[in-house]
């Protein structure tokens, strides 16, 4: 039996609607993923995963209603999953290599706090995490966040207040070391 022929990249096939969706929302999803994971390869994986899911299944109703908000939330959730997986793997490796006493890199202090923060954010409700990241990573105002996520400014302000309080509890020890 002949193998399935893969078209050359010179001639590419894509549903037009999908292509438009990708081009329109790529930057926000990629920036979100890159900001959270801090790695190009992870950011690419996140974007690829969320758009591949769209190619392989029926269009979710939330995507039709608010594509930007839906794709942003998907990028946040997928990125946080990667950060958590990485954190768990690092803990296992740290336990295994404890005896080796590998010296920490100079930049690891800031990166560690970054990782801890996102690990803590992953423990918040997905909506709260999305709001927090829009504010502190993308510098969105309450009004801009409300518009993107299809909610009110009041909800955003209250969620941000509660999320900050929860984060403080979760990373309290690390904050004590913050200069």
């Amino acid at each position, binding site marked *: 039996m002949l193998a399935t022929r893969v078209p050359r990249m010179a*001639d590419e096939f894509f549903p*037009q609607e999908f292509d438009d969706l990708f081009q329109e929302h*790529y930057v926000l999803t990629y920036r979100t993923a890159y900001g959270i994971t801090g790695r190009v390869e992870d950011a690419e994986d996140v974007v690829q995963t969320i758009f591949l899911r769209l190619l392989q299944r029926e269009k979710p109703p939330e995507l039709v209603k608010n594509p930007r908000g839906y794709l942003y939330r998907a990028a946040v959730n997928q990125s946080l999953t990667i950060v958590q997986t990485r954190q768990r793997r690092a803990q296992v490796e740290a336990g295994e290599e404890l005896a080796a006493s590998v010296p920490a890199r100079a930049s690891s202090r800031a990166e560690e706090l970054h990782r801890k923060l996102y690990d803590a954010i992953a423990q918040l409700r997905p909506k709260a995490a999305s709001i927090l990241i829009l504010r502190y990573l993308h510098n969105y105002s309450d009004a801009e966040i409300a518009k993107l996520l299809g909610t009110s400014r009041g909800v955003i302000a209250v969620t941000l207040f509660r999320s900050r309080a929860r984060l403080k509890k979760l990373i309290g020890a690390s904050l004590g070391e913050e200069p």
Partner: protein
Amino acid sequence: MKPDRERFEKMLYRHLGLFGSPSAGQLDASRGRILERLRARYDATAPNDDARVIRVSRVANAWRVGLVAATIAAAIVLMVTASRERVDALGTVEMADGSRNSLRPNVVLRSSEVGTMLALKDGSRLELRANSELSLERAVDGIAVRLRTGGLIVTAAKQHGGHLYVLTKDMTVAVVGTMFVVNAESIGSRVTVIEGEVRVREGTSEKSVRPGQQVSTAPALATRSVREEVGWSRHAEAILAAFAKGMAETGDAALVALGQAAADPEFEAASIKQCDPDHLPQTPDRGRGGGANSVQLTPGRLRALCVTPRRS
């Protein structure tokens, strides 16, 4: 704002945005890589009529080998029949290397090199210029080709009561059986007719365009000769010969000469263009000629100064 909250927020801004924003170059490079991977995954999972047709042919040979193979072949044939019913492709892409792929409605085809041919379900054939992008759609009475960018040469099959349409962002071309060239550029679109007749609609106005005539939606789009319009095609000479034949059928001596000249490889490019009534060629001093439908003959060269559309 309380100092405590201020400090905490400052820390959040600093550490959540630790890696900053990716550069434009990084964004573009990643975009390309992601799209490439998505396309590879999509192409690997998308239904492909031709691959299945070939598979059926191989299984048919296996039928002769034995009963087991025949059973498998029958099962595959059934699957193929079912899937072919599901997939309603509007055309088949024939690439320069001879490979073929079906093109379903609303799927974007990008051609990065010359030589990609598209055979439509109605028998029409399209040749794509390099870096062109189009998709096919079902129209009420035929097939619509949505040309997003680039150019194509359309050899439309005789339509049986229907139409073939070519749509650009600012123009609609409707045909029933003819050959023409369409270019979609950022500033506008241009249609040049080689054979037959097309109806071009731009906004609310509609006009008929005949062989040798050219219509563009933007004045900034330079008028181009037929030879220039089809020069990139692998079948340029055959198209120019068809153009000469079409011009000969008009019976107009000047147009016949122009058609023959366009088919001649030595013919000077950029010569066949529509007359501007306000700027007709001048009659040379102590000479003859000039005006509409005039040509200029110099040793080894024939140039059309301008051509007026034939009155129907």
